């Protein structure tokens, strides 16, 4: 931690008990959003991506409706290329919480042999993530879908609304987004329209980890550093879980102490060299290291502004 810039700070214990820490303030705001959606939409669903943000979202949903159960199902878009540890964690968590879990895969695309090295990352994402998601939302007749996206993740997300309006084709038009003032969220929809809802809009990656630490929220063990067999390719560390990941001449897996900073499909999500094997060590590492988490996603390297393009097409 850096030292405070000013040193005239002498109000620790006498501070009034009626102020919230910033994590408590963020939590209160997120619960308000979750409850508002449950009250105003016919068929909400929570996108569950198994990552740290989803884990936080799930805990917030438990809190928002306590002592009742979470009043909507979870939806996982399974590309079939997710890390194996993620799937095991997903099934354990859903069972532990007693939530209804819907798993959807674009089976036709898988049968056609869709994978990133055959069709390219952009087309692979388009078929296995974007199309699969739009189909699943359509099949379920869902009018509101929660996601764990944060505005600090990527530049094009800084202007995302908490209620992000999508047209009948699930697409996003930056010019049609509605102003959001105070705590007032406009949930009115036209025929075929839906919203993506982002209760973690105002959280940063560091907030998410600090909350996981404070609340002792379980996360996928892939986030913690240990020795793993990876392919070292330039700055990328790729976990060779899928047989179709091609080895370049002379390449073979090496044991590297590393961890995942964000989770996705194993062929397209790089690991980082790290010794952080506990949540507090991850927080220390985040404060010291200054790389944005999305840099480690191979998929975002395609072109400048690629996230904005994916979003317009209906990607989360």
């Amino acid at each position, binding site marked *: 931690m*850096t*030292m*405070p*810039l*000013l040193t005239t*700070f002498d*109000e620790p214990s006498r501070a*009034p008990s*009626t*102020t*919230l820490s*910033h*994590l*408590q*303030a*963020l939590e*209160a*705001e997120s*619960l*308000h959003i979750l*409850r*508002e959606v*449950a*009250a105003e939409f016919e068929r909400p669903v929570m996108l569950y991506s198994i990552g740290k943000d989803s884990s936080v979202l799930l805990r917030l949903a438990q*809190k*928002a*409706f*306590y002592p*009742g*159960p979470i009043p909507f199902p979870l939806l996982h878009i399974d590309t079939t290329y997710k890390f194996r540890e993620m799937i095991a964690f997903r099934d354990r968590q859903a069972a532990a919480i007693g939530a209804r879990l819907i798993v959807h895969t674009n089976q036709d695309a898988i049968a056609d042999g869709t994978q990133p090295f055959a069709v390219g990352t952009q087309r692979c994402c388009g078929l296995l993530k974007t199309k699969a998601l739009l189909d699943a939302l359509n099949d379920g007749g869902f009018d509101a879908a929660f996601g764990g996206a944060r*505005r*600090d993740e990527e530049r*094009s*997300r*800084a*202007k995302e609304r908490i209620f992000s309006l999508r047209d009948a084709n699930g697409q996003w038009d*930056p010019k049609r*987004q*509605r*102003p*959001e*003032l*105070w*705590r*007032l969220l*406009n949930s*009115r*929809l*036209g025929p075929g329209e839906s919203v993506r809802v982002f209760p973690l809009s*105002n959280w*940063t990656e*560091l*907030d998410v980890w600090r909350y996981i630490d404070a609340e002792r929220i379980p996360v996928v063990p892939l986030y913690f550093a240990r020795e793993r067999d990876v392919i070292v390719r330039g700055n990328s560390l790729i976990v060779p879980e899928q047989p179709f990941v091609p080895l370049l001449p002379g390449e073979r897996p090496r044991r590297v102490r590393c961890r995942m900073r964000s989770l996705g499909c194993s062929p397209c999500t790089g690991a980082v060299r790290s010794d952080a094997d506990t949540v507090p060590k991850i927080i220390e590492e985040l404060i010291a290291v*200054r*790389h*944005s988490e999305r*840099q480690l996603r191979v998929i975002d390297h395609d072109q*400048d*502004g690629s996230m*904005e393009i994916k979003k317009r097409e209906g990607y989360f």
Partner: protein
Amino acid sequence: MSGLLRLCTAGSVDDGKSTLIGRLLYESRGVYEDQVRSVEAASRNRGAGPIDFSLFTDGLKAEREQGITIDVAYRYFATARRKFILADTPGHEQYTRNMATGASTSDLAILLVDARHGIREQTRRHARIARLLGISSFVLAVNKMDLVGFDRDPFERMRGEFRALLEDLPPSGGRTAAMTLHAIPLSALHGDNVTTKSARTPWYDGPALLPYLETVEAGRALAVGAFRLPVQLVLRPDHRFRGYAGQIASGVIRAGDAVTIWPSGMRSRVTRIVTWDGDLETAFAPMSIALVLDHDVDISRGDFIATTPLHVGKRFSADVVWMDERPLDPERPYVLKHSARSVTAEIDGALALNQIGRVQVATARPLAFDPYAENRITGSFVLIDPATNFTAGAGMIADAVGDPRSAEVAAGVAARLARAARDAATDRAAVDAVRDLLEEILT
């Protein structure tokens, strides 16, 4: 001091706002090294020197190409002392709605001016919007001091002019409230007085911008003031539990406190304050909690649980910021959303996009509310165009129209009627009891 400060920024085109925010993010580690590299590469392409800080904040591809900022963008940064949520709003006059949006959730506003040009019409407009939206803490950031040779005179002149301007501005609802102004001479481009004090302004004895933001006490303390809980959801997981869930708008509540439900006026008592983390003895704004009351009362989403009376009525005056390209049409009904309740409303007034004005509102059903000057949550509403579903207007309630006592009388009547109906043994008897009571009241 709250661990979270929400603030907004505004300035005219070319006042260097994006550069200032980019530098704040950069210096407080709100941007990452790979973003720095990508911005360095882009800066080289545009020939804007080593690092063009403004590129950290220009988000959407469309606006990067046009070189302007066209929507509210939210930025996050933190120091060891505090976390900041910054609503970055563009300076163009046609985007007044964005300024209002950013200000609605902010406790402090930074208004940026160019040291060479001074206070301009745009600055006055931004100050007026910020004040109208209830902001009482202002920072005047006099930027580009390097271009006036770090001269004290223009800075002092602008500070005096801005103070006079603020003092002349009517706050929301025409009520006066304490206001603070802190003016800082800086150069966002060169980093003077942004995170550390500059040696080039020896005549300035205040803190640099970031240290000031770390310690400023801004915004009205939500927990001070009368308790109000807008009921968002009635939680009924089984027949034994009935909890009223919401985010506290203001004030403090303790288990055992007597409360009144608005707009019905029925009374009850808090028996439990329920959260996932366990029952609480005390809860305060802005916590999200659920209350259990000591007997079943008829409460639904949109009602308020409060310790002191709200205004109840169907008519009030309000200041409205118009945000839709279709002008306000007094002939058409709008959907008015106030806390967790939506009602049909007619609005008497004439406003076009980005205009602000006082209007008269008539709602189809009674609302319980406070003036905006007293409570930013229970005093605010949005107007939704039912044809397009666009959020067309943002309103701040100025005053109830009509006899102020009529609300409490009406609420009392409602409570008596409800009690008469509840105490009756059969539906038939309830109808009779309500009819008799109404006749008694009306004659």
